[in-house]
């Protein structure tokens, strides 16, 4: 693509560079390798540092290694060695809970990734998640007594569309007045947070009708609950939200790689000026991409609500409540904004989150409440390193690429 003589946009992601000639071919190979290598290096880096931090504070490398082994087991990944379908087996139960968290994180990750592909940073997954959650709750509580399939569909579609519209506000503001989506989505996050707090708070319109002293929403009617496909009596099972999330991975891939919409979105993300020059309506794509991004995040809230939670209470869901949208950023970045990468990163973070708190409930070496902070540290380190692939590339030894990149003029100041 050739840009018209306008000011160049900020440098696109490394894999988008493509100069003709043998240099480009060599780089393409390296970047494809880097596409896998950098995330893996990042995770290894972050884990090593976290293990070192725990080792330093506990004064024992052994304790630290045991603690991380227990996180691994706590996530239910030792199930692979002894597979069983009986949820009363601890490993199977832990794995089922990790899968529940993973489903949510897949969707919030896809949300961030989709906006990224259009060159936007949707930091508002949290707010869109809340909107999806509360609308699904409202629809799930209303229409009680409907037959299950239409009721579930109404609640899902309603919650998803509401979140899409909510995210669309940021898209419209970017398209019409050029307001930066990072700022608008941060504001929309907190607007959603306080609005939902008001809705379910004491005297709020969606507060539960039986116990007015408790800031809790009503229970979703049984007809709107997502059925479990793997579960046992008395245990929280894995609901079909997991398949919804997996289906969305496929939908994401098809949308991005196999449709005109995805082509336009990627073109705008690559270079808005060039896309406009090529006849693509950039503003329309900003709005569209933001709305689709919001739909993914909203769907995460919907399946959390109709699946395990069924009512809303602050801090009540398994995934640390105020954070799933933000963790989606880490998931998308680690997954390099691709469908498959997001899926893998979501599994990693889902396991880390569940394994380090609930899975460690019986740990002998480390206080579970202490360990519950480890995911934040790992996640922070991962995001920090993934944003600075220059550092990791230099570690990897790609000096050539490093020099090539730093010789590029940066930003509009060029």
């Amino acid at each position, binding site marked *: 693509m050739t840009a018209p003589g306008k000011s160049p946009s900020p440098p696109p992601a490394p894999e988008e560079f493509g100069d003709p000639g043998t240099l480009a071919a060599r780089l393409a190979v390296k970047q494809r390798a880097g596409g896998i290598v950098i995330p893996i290096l990042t995770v290894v880096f972050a884990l090593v540092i976290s293990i070192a931090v725990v080792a330093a504070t506990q004064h024992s490398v052994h304790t630290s290694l045991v603690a991380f082994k227990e996180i691994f087991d706590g996530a239910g990944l030792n199930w692979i060695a002894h597979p069983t379908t009986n949820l009363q087996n601890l490993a199977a139960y832990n794995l089922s809970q990790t899968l529940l968290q993973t489903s949510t994180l897949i969707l919030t990750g896809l949300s961030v990734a989709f906006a990224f592909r259009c060159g936007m940073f949707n930091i508002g997954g949290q707010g869109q998640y809340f909107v999806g959650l509360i609308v699904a709750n409202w629809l799930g509580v209303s229409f009680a007594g409907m037959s299950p399939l239409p009721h579930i569909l109404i609640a899902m579609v309603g919650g998803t569309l509401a979140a899409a519209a909510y995210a669309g506000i940021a898209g419209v503001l970017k398209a019409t007045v050029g307001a930066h989506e990072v700022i608008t989505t941060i504001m929309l996050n907190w*607007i959603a947070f306080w609005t939902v707090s008001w809705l379910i708070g004491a005297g709020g319109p969606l507060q539960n009708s039986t116990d007015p002293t408790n800031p809790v929403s009503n229970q979703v009617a049984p007809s709107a609950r997502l059925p479990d496909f793997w579960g046992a009596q008395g245990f929280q099972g894995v609901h079909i939200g997991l398949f919804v999330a997996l289906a969305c991975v496929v939908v994401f891939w098809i949308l991005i790689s196999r449709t005109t919409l995805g082509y336009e979105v990627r073109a705008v993300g690559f270079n808005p000026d060039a896309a406009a020059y090529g006849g693509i309506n950039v503003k329309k794509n900003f709005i569209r991409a933001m709305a689709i991004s919001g739909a993914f995040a909203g769907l995460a809230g919907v399946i959390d609500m109709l699946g395990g939670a069924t009512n809303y209470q602050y801090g009540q869901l398994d995934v640390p409540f105020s954070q799933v949208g933000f963790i989606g*950023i880490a998931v998308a970045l680690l997954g390099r904004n691709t469908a498959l990468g997001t899926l893998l990163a979501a599994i990693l973070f889902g396991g880390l989150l569940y394994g380090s708190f609930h899975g460690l409930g019986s740990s002998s070496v480390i206080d579970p409440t202490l360990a519950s902070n480890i995911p*934040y540290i790992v996640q*922070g380190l991962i*995001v920090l390193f993934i944003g600075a692939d*220059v550092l990791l590339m230099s570690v990897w030894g790609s000096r050539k690429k490093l020099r090539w990149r730093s010789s590029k003029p940066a930003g509009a100041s060029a």
Partner: protein
Amino acid sequence: MSTWAERLDNPVSARLRDPAATGYLGIILGAFAAFLAIPPIEARTITWPILVGIVAAALGIWTVTRGRRRLGWGAVAAGLVGIGLGILATHSSTTNLSSAFDSTLVAQTLGFATPLVFAAMGGMFSERSGVVNIGLEGMMLMGAFWGVYGADKGGNWVVGLLVAMAVGGLFALVYAFFAIQLRADQIVGGTAINFLAVGITGFFFIQLYNNNPIPNGVSLLPNVNIPGLSGSLGQAIGDLNILTWAGFVLVLVAYVVLFKTAIGLRIRACGEHPRAADTVGIDVYAIRYACVVLSGVLAAVGGIYLSEGPQGNGTFLFDMTNGRGFIALAAVIFGNWRPFGAFGAALLFGFSSALALKLQVYSQSAGTLFNILPYVLTLIAVAGVIGRTVPPAADGQPYAKQ
């Protein structure tokens, strides 16, 4: 558009005809319309708020016809909102009114605004030098924890303050290294900083205090008691925290440094056009490093107010900043990247928090909803409905030396 200085040079009559002046007057009158119905004036008829509100709206329309459309519509809106609030206030009971609107509201507003002022000044320096800092939240959180830890172990709030500033500065240095030296995406880096802060403070809080609360009797940030002030003035400003007063000074200093000194000019040059700044011999990296570290130090001071100030009372809670760093960021944007603008925005946001607390005498749920005001206002501000906010031109763009 003429500058304030030029406008002030004009004769009074010309100034009154200036559509900008009438627009601002309309907005002020609109606010005054609501103010009339609450203590201490507390007009019990709806006549006065309506009259003043109509005048405000009329001034707004006059301003619109003179070409300052955004300002004019802002004044019209202010007038109408003023009428609405005034009517609401005259319909509620006087006891509720006087418990919600007394002079402690001023003290509470200043109290809520103090952490925002510090973090916003920090964010402003960082952004003026061209580095977006959405890690303010995390830097505040670090200040909140390490400040109270320092005060606990050091036995003195001064130690706590120094520890908070040092940790905040070091933490910001990490961010600066990634954002400036490695030219990482600044939004991604800031997000990482926020995650890290939650993890680090949560981890060490449990590590160092064994899951127990921080013991009582930690030396707190003292209040400044002004003797001789009594009555409502004494209630309003007679017993403010030392950091609240320091915040006032900071705003003045920030203004002078940023707009009246050579250093401030260099900072702004780095934020507007780093290549040009580099060409004339300014060390862009050094300036940006200094500004980001300063933002960490100031945000940490804002954070220590939360744990060591009058509301925190020497305790730390998991993720206790609860979005205040983002409100501070909003204040920077709403204040158009200017010290007094950001200060005004911080006061406004502090006022809305204080009012959210006070309005619970009417209805708890309505008070909760009032918390969205800062965010809605900022959204409106960036949308450019009333005036337009313009960020520094190179804000958020990494700079590569040549």
